[in-house]
């Protein structure tokens, strides 16, 4: 955004998982789930994070929230690095960041009523109790488009969309400044997706929090995001304002990704598919630019040196040797 200090600033975030094998459980490999990711997110802004399955999107989300411990890197929330904090020291910061998960069926405890689920964060942080808590929960229910009389119902009595609304209400209860949405609509019907997305946008307009919005559906990302970051194999390959990215994709991977979006018009001109093969294994990622094995423009340099994110003008950053901020690959 503008010159203000960003709400969330992630620098060189790395998460490696050890692959162990043999009787002695020795480490025989490393999964490079997140391999040096940096981005920043301003107040009231939505950053869309897109990429194929297994590219590390969800790991980024969980690491930012410290649900998964980062291997290295800094996560600055309002200027303070929360990566090295102990669990106890982290606790007050938990109020400022919340998460909405993909699966609305598994993210609610089946043995608790909806009202208890939404009110629980208030009790944990000692913010409200008794009638005051009930009042606040009722208010949250209304904010997400549920009726307060549904508070005493159990999760299985709600539809998928309604459950996701409960999850959103729970995330809102502590008044966070950042909500991480990990594919919040992927499990929902298309008609319900639009409702939930619009609810998220509405809430953001009213309360001015930021979203880190993870999705693989580009149409959804295009609708909700201000900026979009594209991930490939644990790295961000391109970041830009939404309109700029969709109009002027610079990284060959982004171009391929956009070309692969289905168009609901049989007569529409399709871009030729630009990519084939599968994503390489994150256990043994390719040297240099991770994308060089599938890139039609790859040159020798791509195989040996890893390109960093570089400014390509107009708030557009791209990690590609061919672009280098100078022009398009084609």
């Amino acid at each position, binding site marked *: 955004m503008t010159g203000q200090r960003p709400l969330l600033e992630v620098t060189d975030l790395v998460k490696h998982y050890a692959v162990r094998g043999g009787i002695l459980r020795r480490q025989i490999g490393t999964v490079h789930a997140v391999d040096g990711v940096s981005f920043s997110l301003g107040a009231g802004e939505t950053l869309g994070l897109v990429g194929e399955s297994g590219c590390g999107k969800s790991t980024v989300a*969980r690491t930012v*929230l410290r*649900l998964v411990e980062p291997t290295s890197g800094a996560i600055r929330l309002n200027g303070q690095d929360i990566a090295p904090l102990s669990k106890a020291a*982290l*606790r007050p910061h*938990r*109020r400022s*960041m*919340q*998460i909405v*998960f*993909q*699966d609305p069926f*598994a*993210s*609610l*405890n*089946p*043995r608790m009523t909806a009202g208890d689920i939404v009110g*629980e*964060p208030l009790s*944990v*942080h000692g913010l409200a109790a008794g009638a005051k808590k009930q009042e606040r929960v009722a208010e949250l229910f209304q904010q997400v488009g549920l009726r307060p009389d549904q508070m005493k119902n*159990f999760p*299985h*009595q709600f539809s998928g969309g309604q459950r996701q609304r409960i*999850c959103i209400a*729970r995330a809102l209860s*502590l008044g966070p400044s950042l909500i991480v949405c990990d594919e919040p609509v992927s499990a929902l019907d298309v008609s319900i997706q639009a409702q939930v997305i619009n609810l998220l946008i509405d809430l953001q307009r009213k309360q001015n929090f930021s979203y880190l919005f993870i999705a693989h559906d580009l149409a959804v990302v295009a609708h909700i995001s201000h900026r979009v970051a594209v991930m490939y194999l644990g790295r961000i390959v391109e970041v830009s304002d939404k309109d700029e990215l969709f109009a002027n994709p610079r990284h060959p991977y982004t171009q391929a990704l956009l070309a692969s979006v289905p168009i609901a018009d049989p007569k529409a001109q399709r871009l030729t598919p630009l990519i084939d093969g599968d994503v390489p294994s994150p256990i043994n990622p390719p040297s240099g630019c991770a994308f060089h094995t599938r890139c039609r423009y790859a040159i020798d340099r791509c195989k040996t040196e890893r390109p960093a994110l570089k400014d390509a003008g107009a708030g557009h950053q791209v990690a590609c040797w061919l672009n280098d901020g100078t022009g398009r690959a084609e």
Partner: protein
Amino acid sequence: MATINFESELRRAGANATGGWRRLAFLAQRYMLGTIGLIIMLLFVWMAASADLICRYDPLSVDSAHRLAAPSALHWFGTDSFGRDVWSRIIHGSRISLAVGIGSTTLGATLGVIVGLASGYLSGWVDLVFQRITDMLQSLPLLVLALVMTAALGPSLPNVIVAIAIPLIPTVARVIRANTLALREQPFVEAAKSIGMSEMRIALRHVLPNTMAPLIVLATAQLGSTILTEASLSFLGLGIPEPYPSWGRMLSESAAEYVRTAPWLVIFPGIAISLAVFGTNLFGDALRDILDPRQRG
């Protein structure tokens, strides 16, 4: 999924959802089998509590004139090889059998839940240590373990309860641990973490209640086997000391010798054990459903 709406059904039945007795009456009607189970259990408890009032003979008094008498108006369930009244012995035996069954199941299940929950939730070295101990305990048959325990502790009612409870711990712990491992990865547990809940509170509030269904089924199933283990222990002379009656011993003592000549010595204790196990299983099934909001609709 066709769920039945509990509240609306209550209203339709004309019940006041807040009235405790009406609610109970509704549940009794809805879970007929469970109610039968509960009645059987209460009957046994009543039998044990008022044994002296129901009995017509002293369960320990020997009557050599009426040895192995067949069931008659005088001795409803007949008499055993010492001429003791079987009916009285069954009534009095319910005290010991129920105390052993309920006592050791409760003790074993409680400790098993603690071990399983800690093992599954904390994982790491706690899990490793608990699991290896569990493996050791499980590699021995229930009876052998209980035998060693009572031999070490000496035969008495509390010792028998403890001896039977300890081998139960690994069985319960295994089931609870497996459930905990699965639940721990559920997004609602992750959500609780992101709220900033303490691990202890997550384990007790989010994980434990969701392990109740298998626990209840397991515990009610184990209740029967604890009564039978007590029988074997008594038969081997390490259970409840003679001459006090327990169903298990009455059954096992007479099974080989008298099954042809005096079958009432085998049949009636057998019926008592089966009924008690049957009752708890029926009740356990209903309890599991009642405690699960998804089943309630």
